[in-house]
């Protein structure tokens, strides 16, 4: 586990002030914040590479504040792999490992065993990140720190790397703290979300809560999404509903059924089946009196709970089988559709609007 208690630190121009949060053992923590928030400094302070000027850092229950990095039993993966250029791939992976078996095992899991004798410069970006993660995990750390590890990768590679990492994580259940400036890049919301801005923690807690009830308008803006659902994702290749038939094959490959509470909606994504989150921006939800017959794959009847005008748009919250869905609609549409609290309405959104993470 990772526990920070009133930690302050400074590294060059970046500062942390009075940072406190807990990431329970074996859970996945996400640190979100804009550029310059101090996210990398946070990771480096936890790693012991940057010195904390105040507060305590506990890892696995032990006070590690005064310990040097090599004794903290953690691994770090930066945005750029930082593979040692003078060593081969295998030498990189085995750099901190205890046994050759660990190295073989982790190399196989991440698919880098075939690259063993290659030089670092001959690798592609995605290969490098895989090697970097394998290197960190070969040592069997208790904590894994990730500094936007996928942001330098192209989307396809990103998915591959993300998926492998998540699989290994589920198996080994080390504690993860991942830093990102964009939650959609993170690929998942994890178990604990920590919002960092200008070196301070501005909000923390269950990701769904943080997203649904951003502590400030700023956070809300930054996250840019009001509809966050925790649920289960299931690929539905063979049981694809009729709207998938007739589309390109890769479309079919990514069809997913996402169930939250009593609702199931269709989404597109490359997911590991199991618990995940679905995020939908309010702007992508349309309201109508009757179900539309167009390509909107998700349509639900519900009752309006409240309407909050906000400038040119109004935020309309609709109760669909017990799950609230927020739609952003123009004031004009509100008038034209005669929307008011208690009215019945159909909320619809495309499968592509459902963001799984």
């Amino acid at each position, binding site marked *: 586990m990772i526990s920070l208690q009133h930690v302050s630190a400074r590294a060059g121009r970046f500062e942390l002030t009075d940072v406190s949060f807990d990431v329970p053992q074996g859970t996945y923590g996400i640190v979100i914040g804009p550029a310059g928030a101090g996210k990398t400094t946070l990771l480096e302070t936890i*790693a012991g590479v940057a010195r904390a000027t105040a507060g305590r850092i506990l890892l696995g229950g032990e006070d590690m504040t005064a310990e040097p990095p090599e004794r903290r039993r953690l691994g*770090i993966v930066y945005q750029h792999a930082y593979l040692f250029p003078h060593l081969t791939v295998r030498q990189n992976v085995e750099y901190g490992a205890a046994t050759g078996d660990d190295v073989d095992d982790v190399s196989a899991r991440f698919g880098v065993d075939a690259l063993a004798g290659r030089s670092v410069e001959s690798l592609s970006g995605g290969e490098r990140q895989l090697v970097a993660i394998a290197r960190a995990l070969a040592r069997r750390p208790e904590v894994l720190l990730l500094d936007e590890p996928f942001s330098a990768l192209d989307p396809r590679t990103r998915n591959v790397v993300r998926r492998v990492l998540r699989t290994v994580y589920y198996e080994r259940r080390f504690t993860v703290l991942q830093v990102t400036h964009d939650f959609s890049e993170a690929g998942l919301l994890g178990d604990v979300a920590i919002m960092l801005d200008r070196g301070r923690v501005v909000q923390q807690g269950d990701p769904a809560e943080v997203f649904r009830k951003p502590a400030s308008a700023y956070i809300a803006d930054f996250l840019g999404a009001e509809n966050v659902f925790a649920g289960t994702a299931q690929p539905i290749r063979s049981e694809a509903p009729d709207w998938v038939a007739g589309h390109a094959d890769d479309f079919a490959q990514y069809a997913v059924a996402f169930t939250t509470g009593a609702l199931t909606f269709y989404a597109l994504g490359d997911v590991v089946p199991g618990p995940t989150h679905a995020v939908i921006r309010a702007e992508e939800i349309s309201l109508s009196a009757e179900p539309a017959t167009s390509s909107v794959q998700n349509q639900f009847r519900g009752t309006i709970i409240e309407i909050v005008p906000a400038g040119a748009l109004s935020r309309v919250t609709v109760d669909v089988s017990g799950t609230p869905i927020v739609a952003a609609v123009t004031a004009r549409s509100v008038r034209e559709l005669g929307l008011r609290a208690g009215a019945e309405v159909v909320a619809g959104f495309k499968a592509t609007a459902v963001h799984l993470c």
Partner: protein
Amino acid sequence: MTAVRRSVGTIVVALIASLFLLFIVAPVVGLVSSGGARGLATLASDRELLASLWLTIATATIATVLGMLGGTPIAYLLARRTFRGRAVVAALMDLPLVIPHPVAGIALLLVLGRASPIGAALYQAGLRVAGSSTGIVCAMLFVSAPLYVSAAREAFARVDARYESVARTLGDDAWRAFRRVTLPLSARGLTAAAVVMWARAISEFGAIVILTYNPKVVSVLSYDRFTSYGMSEALPVAAVLVLFALVPLAALRALRAGEPVVSS
């Protein structure tokens, strides 16, 4: 219109570059061609010159090794750590470069001479500084170490500190991370720095001659020959010195050719 201006600019730059190159090369070529070759032929029989060469190479090498041992930690600290007074330390390290050479020799005499506390202790222990090869090494070390430190600092700075950070998290303590990662990655740069220091040590005159006149290093010998016999006897010595300068130059070229790029 701009195309014309551009080509005029190129011509001017090329002209300046050629003139400057000529300025550097002409005296050397003139030296070697005016009897330097004849002098080289007699080199093998010139015992005094051979002994002087051997002394110069040996002392310069010892000075360079000492400079690397003492200067590498300082260069590393300057490159990696921000501490209060870092700029002062860096400036102090550069001081010997701006002191006129004879003044440097006098300064060393003040600190290491028989009449000083340190010098007296050394003298008691049987280690003479002035008038010995020890004095030569001290003078060479003093004037050329700053070159090593600033070049070595550059070499370390070119290795991203994050490599060390990663190595630390992978279980290395600070020394191991330095040895297994930073050192191999900066090795070429450090070697080039040492070569520069060596070349500077070989060519020193003013500081050395204050501390140690006998035994004579090559620079002192060439001046001595000039003073005693004139130009014609000084030329072979000078030509030999020029050839010696080619050795570090060639080494530097070989090192730079294979420099790896270490950015990520």
